[in-house]
């Protein structure tokens, strides 16, 4: 069991309080996922030639200032490092491939959670309330987000195993369910040159979609291929720079409920997480059909 939440704020006036709106949604999914939680937040874009790198350190007292200095010294380029507990967002104009190589060489102990112009990722172990408090989710501002609460069933409880997972810039995925062919998918994809960071089944789904899109599929075509190749139970919620997308497996084994309102679109595993949204009484609340793709654009 896990919990998923998604929120896309249509009303520009409410975007400064997206964190506050989301918090009860995430906490509402605590019973479904008490061991870790994560959030992908799509906020204000960095400059056109800049990228944000979400980083995670396993040790709490990591010296982020030193990382910034080393980066600027070694690579002779400006970088902004904004730490938040175990996480930091590094912003630079240097191209991602070079940044990744540099990080691997000089800071192999760090996890690179995401790269993009809009998206920051935070994920950690603890209850959703603890994780939200640690990273101050309540005060996040932005247009849309994807969140997850995890109850691990198939791999370890670590920040790296928590969701969301990413596959490409400003692209993330969370999963409720379990895949039975994750290992064979991983072998197939590794043969295609796709790199894995964990043995998590959701990462296999994420990398599968990444591979399909690398081969030229758009998201919808990639997901249609996914219906054929992903064996197991899943509700998948994906976030891109300007949209949220949702699919459920053909047997509808894992839940989802949607509230569409003039001001927002909210998605959760259960209505419990939508109940406290403003004016929810006037939202159109419905359950998505299995094997259908739902997309909401900004």
């Amino acid at each position, binding site marked *: 069991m896990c919990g998923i939440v998604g929120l896309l704020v249509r009303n520009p006036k409410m975007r400064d309080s997206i964190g506050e709106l989301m918090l009860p949604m995430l906490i509402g999914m605590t019973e479904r996922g008490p061991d870790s939680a994560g959030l992908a937040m799509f906020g204000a874009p960095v400059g056109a030639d800049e990228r944000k790198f979400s980083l995670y350190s396993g040790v709490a007292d990591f010296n982020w200032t030193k990382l910034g200095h080393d980066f600027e010294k070694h690579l002779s380029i400006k970088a902004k490092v904004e730490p938040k507990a175990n996480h930091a967002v590094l912003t630079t104009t240097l191209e991602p491939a070079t940044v990744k190589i540099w990080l691997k060489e000089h800071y192999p102990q760090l996890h690179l959670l995401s790269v993009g112009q809009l998206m920051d990722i935070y994920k950690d172990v603890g209850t959703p309330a603890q994780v939200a408090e640690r990273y101050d989710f309540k005060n996040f501002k932005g247009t849309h987000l994807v969140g997850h609460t995890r109850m691990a069933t198939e791999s370890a409880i670590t920040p790296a195993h928590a969701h969301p997972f990413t596959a490409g810039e400003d692209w993330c995925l969370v999963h409720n369910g379990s895949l039975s062919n994750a290992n064979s998918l991983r072998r197939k994809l590794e043969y295609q040159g796709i790199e894995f960071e964990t043995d998590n089944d959701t990462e296999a789904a994420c990398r599968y979609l990444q591979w399909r899109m690398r081969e030229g599929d758009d998201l919808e075509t990639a997901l249609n291929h996914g219906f054929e190749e992903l064996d197991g139970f899943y509700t998948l919620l994906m976030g891109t720079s300007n949209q949220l997308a949702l699919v459920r497996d053909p047997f*509808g084994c894992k*839940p989802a409920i949607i509230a569409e309102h003039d001001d927002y679109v909210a998605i959760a595993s*259960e*209505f419990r997480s939508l109940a406290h949204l403003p004016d929810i009484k006037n939202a159109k609340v419905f359950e998505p059909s299995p094997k259908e793709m739902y997309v909401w654009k900004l």
Partner: protein
Amino acid sequence: METLKYNPDIFDLDVTPLREVNQFLHGDASGLNGKSVVIENPNGAHNIAVGLKSDIDVTIKGHAGYYAAGMNQIAKVTIEGSAGSGVAENMMSGVVHVKGFASNAAAATANGGLLIIDGDAGLRTAIALKGADVVVGGSVGSFSAFMAQAGNFVILGDAGEGLGDSIYEAKIFVRGTVKSLGADCEEKTTSPEDRKILADLLVKSGHADVNPDSFQQYGSARTLYHFHVDNAGAY
């Protein structure tokens, strides 16, 4: 809101823990019979009004979570919003009325009573039905009435894939289209007795205006669960 017959007891789940409300509803029947109870702010909580066993009228004013009115006996439970998975699961008697939609496995293994869903119902509705009546005003998802043993299942809309797979003696009536039938489920000709069952259920569920003759009946071809003489040598 309908006029209530008796002084209602109103519970607000934002104030009173659900466990206390359910314990009240499980109290001695002599004190509860004939009572009307309103539950406000259900907000998708699980297990609301489960295991009722007295002649009580419960109205849930909003969306209910999983297993609402599960194992119901005698009581009437009305959910004014939608219901999560397993509404009226294993109901024995009484009436459960969902005014919105219902998620998966509504009325699973229900032995008796009547479940009315005004909207759509999810996958596996009436799975392993054991004798209850189920009327769905909208459509039902795939694998509904899987291994349904007894009871009547009326669908005013459409049915998904694999309807009535491995069905025993439950009766299914569908007004719309069926995407596909499951193994051993076939079209049936509606007998006058079955037509009366259907007509009565339409009246009871607020669909008196719907013509019983607009339904197609489905049931078991009885090729799966009967002993077959060709297999005698295997024993």
